[in-house]
């Protein structure tokens, strides 16, 4: 078990370094001088030349990469060209919003997804099953920005029940959490249903029933526990993905999270900020997958034995 976890962690380290290198190189090969973009129509050749030199943009790529890597290991991801602040600070201020959004959305997804999947499996092929699976399908299929705008229109513009934009009070969190959670709940519901249906056909379930155990106990204790192994893995990966930034949801609801930070970096061609936020998001996904792997090993005795 310990060996398995150590192996997974060791695999993750070179992956992280590779990500830093690839992201850095990809952004370096893009043509054009970012200082020209910073100045826009007010471009002045003398200023562009001076600031380019001051920012070290004339140095060879390898020198810049070495400098970036050393600084990054010290927690310094550079300074944003446009916002003129340390990138680590910008990420540090945006990440709590993304975490709040991820947690609330994941809760919505789990609260809707798991019971929906279980009920659908138990009530297989009934109207309820079809309704719940239909609801899940709509959640997966509906573009997030459209669902978000629809909710804004109904609950804010028409009913005036919830605030349209911003992220300061608990009321602000309801719509974004539901929009994002609904999309994720569909996947969880469908996976829970199929997994549970598969498990319920096993011999040990038949044995449990033959012993006269109550059906609800059979489902929960013997069925669901085993059916949740792939579901929990999926949930961990989904959560990591949510933590890496939900661009559309954050943009429509005006949530200052990692997603919005990345979009603004792309729009303003703020390379250090884009680099820092992409690397940070990728790290979150790598760590999420690592946690999912570890969690899987705890849940699945077969892996534990290996």
């Amino acid at each position, binding site marked *: 078990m310990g060996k398995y976890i150590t192996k997974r962690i060791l695999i993750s380290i070179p992956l992280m370094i590779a990500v830093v290198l690839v992201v850095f190189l990809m952004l370096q090969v893009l043509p054009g001088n970012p200082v020209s973009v910073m100045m826009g129509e007010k*471009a002045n050749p003398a200023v562009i030349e001076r600031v380019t030199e001051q920012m070290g943009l004339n140095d060879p790529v390898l020198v810049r990469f070495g400098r970036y890597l050393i600084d990054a290991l010290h927690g310094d991801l550079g300074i944003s060209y446009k916002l*003129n602040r340390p990138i680590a600070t910008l990420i540090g201020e945006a990440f709590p919003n993304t975490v709040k959004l991820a947690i609330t959305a994941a809760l919505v997804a789990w609260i809707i997804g798991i019971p929906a999947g279980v009920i659908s499996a138990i009530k297989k092929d009934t109207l*309820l099953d079809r309704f719940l699976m239909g609801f899940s399908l709509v959640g997966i299929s509906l573009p997030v920005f459209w669902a978000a705008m629809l909710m804004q229109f109904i609950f804010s*513009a028409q009913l005036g029940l919830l605030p349209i934009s911003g992220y300061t009070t608990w009321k602000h969190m309801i719509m974004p959490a539901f929009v994002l959670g609904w999309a994720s709940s569909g996947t969880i519901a469908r996976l829970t249903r199929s997994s549970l249906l598969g498990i319920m056909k096993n011999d040990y379930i038949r044995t449990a029933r033959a012993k006269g155990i109550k059906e609800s106990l059979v489902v929960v204790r013997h069925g669901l526990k085993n059916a949740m192994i792939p579901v929990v893995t999926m949930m961990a990966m989904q959560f990591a993905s949510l933590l890496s930034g939900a661009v559309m949801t954050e943009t429509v609801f005006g949530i*200052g999270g990692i997603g919005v930070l990345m979009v603004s970096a792309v729009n303003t061609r703020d390379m250090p900020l884009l680099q820092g936020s992409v690397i940070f998001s990728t790290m979150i996904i790598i760590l999420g997958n690592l946690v999912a792997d570890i969690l899987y090993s705890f849940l699945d005795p077969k892996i534990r034995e290996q």
Partner: protein
Amino acid sequence: MKKKLFAALLSAAMIATCLTGCGGGDSGSGDGNGTGGVSYDDGFAENVLRITYDHECESGDPRQTTADYIIPMNIFDTLLITESTPDGGSELNPGAAESYEISEDGKTYSMHLRQGIKYTNGEELTADDVLYTVDSMLDPERNTLNSPWMDMLVGAQDVLDGNATTVEGKGIIIHDDYNFDIVLTESYAPFLATLSTPAWSILNREACDAADEAGGGKTGTFFGSEPEYTIGSGPFILKEWVLNDHIYLESNPDYWRGAPKIDGVLIKVVTDAETERMMFDQGQTDIFDLDNAPHLLPEYTTSEQWKDCIVPKVTFGVSYLAINENIEPFGDVRVRKALQMSVDKQTILDTLYQGAGVVAHGMYPASMLCYNKDLPEIPYDPEAAKALLADAGYADGFDMTIATNSSDDANTKELVQILQAQWGQIGINVTIDQMDEASWYDVRATGELPMYKATWWGDFNDPDNFIYTFFSGASTKTRSFNYYNTEAIARIEAARHMVDEAERMEEYKELEKIVIQDDAAWIPLFHLEKTRVVQPRVKGFVPHWAGWGDCSYYSVELVAAE
């Protein structure tokens, strides 16, 4: 069982529909009068002006931005202030400097500061702060972007080159705390007007030094980003900055012109135009800049509810098509004139911009000091254009390219497609080359960018800010015009040094006609109008004199509904 479930679902759907229908009538509009129609969900007081910004503001430090001036314009003072006049023009008024004299040779500006102007850290604004402002803008250890506003001072180049640390005694000569001279290397007639631009915001030495120290140095300074360290003397105080959420500017009760009538300005970052529209309709924001959603212009301007709340302002700017004379066949003036005459500008203005603006036949907007109302119109005449092309040897047309860049707005992208169609009618085959923004700027700087559309927003009311910016010897190449009338270029470069103001203005009028109409070096398109819609409770809102999106909110008052 199935029937019960179906009935339950149906009932839920009906209740939801009813609730939606009930709310549609009034809550969607929100009267925004601050007396009971709106309950603000942002936690700020009612007497706070609420506006939106469609992106995170770059910096509050005027040394670090050439684009987002909303913070500097509201928290700092400038020596002079340019203000709108009722006729749509502008005038230069005293600011932190209550008076000034200009020497006969036009090189020395003796400034007299108003006494008693206080920064919010308690320091008084003195001549030393002006010196600090200049020195730090020119400091080569900072990545300052606005140094060109000050590099004409004596000794400025030495500081920029790292050979000196100050212009004291050269470009700035301090007599006492309130009196000092600004000395230029050569006369520069528009200099006075430049003193009212945000780049000339007067920064406090002590506050900036503290911000540098706290941020770990000049490049990491907290000035302009951390409210605690961003100290000014203007009508508002930078109180709160929650990244990608909001900026709050609180009224400065000790402002030398008197405290603002509002408690503060809340700038909400809203990147999505539809969200912005819903917030405004609900009364959650007070001013909606329709540049962020031009498609809504007809809706608001014709709406019974909003048509009296529209605040239009013709911008002090010009949209134009750049012609690169190095690319054949644009070296031939007949071809350039044919292009000028074959663009149906009014149709483009009506179609894409809902007619919000005026067609341009020259370079200067109507509120320019030397505006020439007698400048002949450039007619829309495709037949005459065809004849000119035939005369130039291009009766069958030719192939050409228009370069767009990735950050162009949707209207610009559509505009070039309309041009493609309009020029197609006279046989010109247009290819649209979409380029990445940084590459676009880089290629333009080499003088090799083909035709492109751009918009220039004036910084100060002087023709030099337009004609010199584009057609001075250096600029004509770096903006990819490659204009070859060396005589006109020499006159443009000389005009800025002319001391007689009336003569100078006449010279600029003549130069405009030579460059735009005789030489057809540009295709002027229009002077666009910036349109905002404001809540009825907003009174005294005066758009920026040049029609910028950023402006001072000092004059705003919020009133209860009548």
